[in-house]
């Protein structure tokens, strides 16, 4: 069996030879010095996943592969079970965010960054930040549209936070669930070499939403062209991260089904981005239309001083010269 082990380690390249020389020292150095070790040292699991995809990365990759077999040893009703989902360091989270911002063709996000260590920290807090970024930027863009009007009464529109939260968290959890179920079903029919666990899919979706946070903040700029460009860029980047992640998982399958899957993923993503981000502007315009204090029917081109400036609301997006309802 020693020959087989040598062959397995040789696949990884130079990095693994140092680990093979002293495996025990490696596993001890991984543990945090402040805590009692959560993982019992055990035999490293031979990984069959590396046969197909090209393995790119740094030294941590092989260490986490060795420890991958020791995860999730606690039963699900203990606190330690859930701690395994938050077993990431600061630099790992930053690396994953960077990977979601710079999709490079040929590099799989899951293989390169997640490496059998999916975390729930990223998806949860990125979604939370995105919810508040959307709510705040919607509020601000609404405020800026009506800047300088004495009759305008500012309200914080606080209820929209809950709507945005529901949409985003539902997207971040239900779509991965559906996709995982679909991939499992196809896996039973066609033998795919690459398969992802549910948490890895949640992780990819969560990190791919990160690009929308700066997009939502930059949406305060009330220029149509700028907004369209921002949405296109964000959709392009996150859509390509998702597409490149899931293409290896479906390419063994029937050509049409594989293409349909990828197209569906990208379409859903587009639906989220366009629907959710556009609704910031629609909400502000919609709210304005129903404001009881608005009485004037001026178009944007003309102004009238009547003890104060009166401006016509626009929906800010598609209507440039809308008239307010009386």
């Amino acid at each position, binding site marked *: 069996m020693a020959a087989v082990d040598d062959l397995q380690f040789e696949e990884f390249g130079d990095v693994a030879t140092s680990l093979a020389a002293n495996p025990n020292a490696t596993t001890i150095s991984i543990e*945090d010095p*402040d805590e009692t070790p959560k993982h019992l040292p055990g035999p490293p699991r031979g990984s069959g996943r590396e046969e197909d995809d090209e393995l790119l990365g740094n030294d941590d990759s092989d260490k986490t592969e060795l420890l991958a077999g020791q995860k999730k040893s606690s039963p699900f009703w203990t606190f330690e079970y859930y701690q395994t989902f*938050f077993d*990431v*360091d600061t630099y790992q989270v930053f690396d994953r965010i960077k990977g979601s911002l710079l999709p490079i063709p040929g590099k799989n996000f899951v293989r390169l960054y997640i490496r059998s260590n999916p975390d729930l920290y990223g998806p949860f807090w990125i979604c*939370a930040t995105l919810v508040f970024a959307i709510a705040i930027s919607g509020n601000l863009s609404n405020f800026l549209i009506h800047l300088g009007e004495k009759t305008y009464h*500012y*309200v*914080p529109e*606080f209820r929209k936070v809950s709507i945005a939260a529901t949409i985003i968290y539902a997207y971040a959890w239900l779509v991965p669930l559906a996709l995982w179920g679909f991939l499992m079903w196809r896996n039973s029919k066609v033998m795919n070499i690459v398969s992802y666990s549910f948490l890895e899919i949640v992780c990819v979706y969560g990190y791919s939403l990160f690009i929308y946070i700066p997009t939502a903040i930059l949406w305060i700029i009330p220029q149509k062209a700028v907004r369209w460009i921002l949405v296109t860029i964000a959709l392009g980047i996150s859509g390509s991260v998702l597409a490149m992640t899931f293409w290896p998982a479906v390419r063994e399958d029937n050509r049409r089904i594989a293409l349909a899957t990828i197209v569906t993923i990208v379409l859903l993503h587009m639906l989220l981005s366009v629907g959710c981000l556009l609704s910031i502007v629609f909400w502000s315009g919609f709210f304005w239309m129903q404001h009881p204090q608005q009485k004037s029917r001026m178009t944007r081109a003309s102004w009238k001083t009547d003890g104060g400036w009166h401006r016509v609301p626009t929906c800010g997006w598609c209507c440039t010269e809308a008239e307010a309802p009386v």
Partner: protein
Amino acid sequence: MRSRIREFDNSTLNESVRNTIMRDLKAVGKKFMHVLYPRRSNTLLRDWDLWGPLILCVTLALMLQKGSVDNEKDGGPQFAEVFVIVWFGAVTITLNSKLLGGNISFFQSLCVLGYCILPLTVAMLICRLVLLAEAGPVNFMVRLFVVIVMFAWSVVASTAFLADSQPPNRKVLAVYPVFLFYFIISWMILTFTPE
């Protein structure tokens, strides 16, 4: 809602009510002082209590509540919303820091997060006073400056107490939700407009 250290003292059962209340008030006041001048001390962590956070949260929620029910649907946060945000936000941050491997207890963390709302409550008081004057850009700039300063103070104060309990390579991961939490409360304070 007191820590276990006090319970060993049997003689507190026979003392007058005034003594009990004064002792608790002094403990709360001492913790307020610790928040206002944050140093790396363990007093907040050792003798935790939740009276201070409760007083601060109720005060903040009362002041943030909109007086009229004119635009109920699109108005500001109501009392219950502020209350829920503060307490569920604190619970979420505490769970997050424990899941990341911090060795702080649940109620200690709630205590620290609750007490560090004090600068933002002071900011709310100042904003309400400033809003009594005439509205305008100067008014807004003053309020913005006050809220930013108090927000920074809250974050620095809570980080001073919470940072030591985290593993060293995860400090940023544990501090970021605190930053987000106080940012949201600051946003609610800044955007408050009286009817």
